[in-house]
């Protein structure tokens, strides 16, 4: 019995190498096999779990920035590099009447302009009607964190543009373009996430065709990998399908989603 408990401990340690989303299912499989193993061979058998867990990790389908944490970690990394770059770069000289910039002018200006852009784009982009009541605060915090973390990146790009000297086109347009691109990405990323778990929606499929516009909506449908629901995005705006709609799925659907089923 002691030998089997040692093997179970080895399996538990090896499971840390398996990706978190598949860990429970992976451990269940190995524990089930271990039950049938002769206790004398259990320890040796369980050692193979390390290699298997590594294989599972190496061969898992890659979905970059899928989880909210990985997205924030990526932005934090980019922000750190951008901050370091901003500190190392000399302060840009601007022609009169702007003169030499003060230390806080650029960050403050960047943040205020970001808010302005964000407000404009929020109004311009079609709002998605998929806002369940619970988790609203979490979604707002996630959006604000992304907005804050992208500031150093915008600031660094601003500095680099100013330091590269005279440009063939109006520099402000380039700066605004960079801002617009960064902030648009933040909004689109927010819209592509499950409102419940904030993971990126996956497996987009096209539904219907343009010729069926008067019979049924057509567009794309994406699913939450944890089975929380489906996001239906119509290709064109119609009276019956004007904007994106979130179709929440209850727990009875979870078996259809392997990631959700493994977590149960």
């Amino acid at each position: 019995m002691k030998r089997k408990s040692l093997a179970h401990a080895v399996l538990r340690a090896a499971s840390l190498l398996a990706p978190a989303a598949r860990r429970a299912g992976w451990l269940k499989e190995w524990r089930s096999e271990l039950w049938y193993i002769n206790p004398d061979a259990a320890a040796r058998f369980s050692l193979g779990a390390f290699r298997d867990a590594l294989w599972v990790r190496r061969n898992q389908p890659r979905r970059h920035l899928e989880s909210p944490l990985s997205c924030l970690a990526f932005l934090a990394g980019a922000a750190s590099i951008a901050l370091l770059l901003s500190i190392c770069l000399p302060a840009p000289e601007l022609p009169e009447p702007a003169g030499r910039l003060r230390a806080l002018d650029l960050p403050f200006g960047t943040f205020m302009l970001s808010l302005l852009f964000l407000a404009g784009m929020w109004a311009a982009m079609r709002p998605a009607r998929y806002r369940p009541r619970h988790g609203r605060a979490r979604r707002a915090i996630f959006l604000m964190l992304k907005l804050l973390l992208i500031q150093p990146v915008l600031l660094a790009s601003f500095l680099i543009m100013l330091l590269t000297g005279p440009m063939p086109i109006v520099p402000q347009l380039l700066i605004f373009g960079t801002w617009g691109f960064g902030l648009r990405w933040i909004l689109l990323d927010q819209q592509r996430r499950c409102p419940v778990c904030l993971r990126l929606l996956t497996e987009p499929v096209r539904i219907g065709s343009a010729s069926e516009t008067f019979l049924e909506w057509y567009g794309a449908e994406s699913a939450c990998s944890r089975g929380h629901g489906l996001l239906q995005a119509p290709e064109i705006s119609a009276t019956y399908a004007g904007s994106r709609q979130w179709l929440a799925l209850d727990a009875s659907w979870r078996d259809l989603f392997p990631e959700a089923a493994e977590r149960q």
Partner: protein
Amino acid sequence: MADAPRLSHTTAMILQAVAAGHIYGYTVMDRTGLPSGTVYPALRRLEQDRLIQSKWEPPSAATALRPPRKYYRLTRVGETALAASRKRYPLLASLTPAGDVRDS
């Protein structure tokens, strides 16, 4: 017909063992003599390549007393690949004689 995938000798042995009726990971290990760190990743790779497919035992009176097991079956693609491997490794069939421990 599409070309059958070329399998290594070890992978072909595992595929042969599954085809011979050793449908559980441990019985494949037992029959081939390969360690668990080789057999289980190989089974996953074979499943990813759609040469075999796995299923969990359905709940039954037997599984109330013991944990359910995952078992493997050859797919049609797997059968084709195994047939090609048998030509490449003629001794393959004798390495894992057909199942005497099949329990389902």
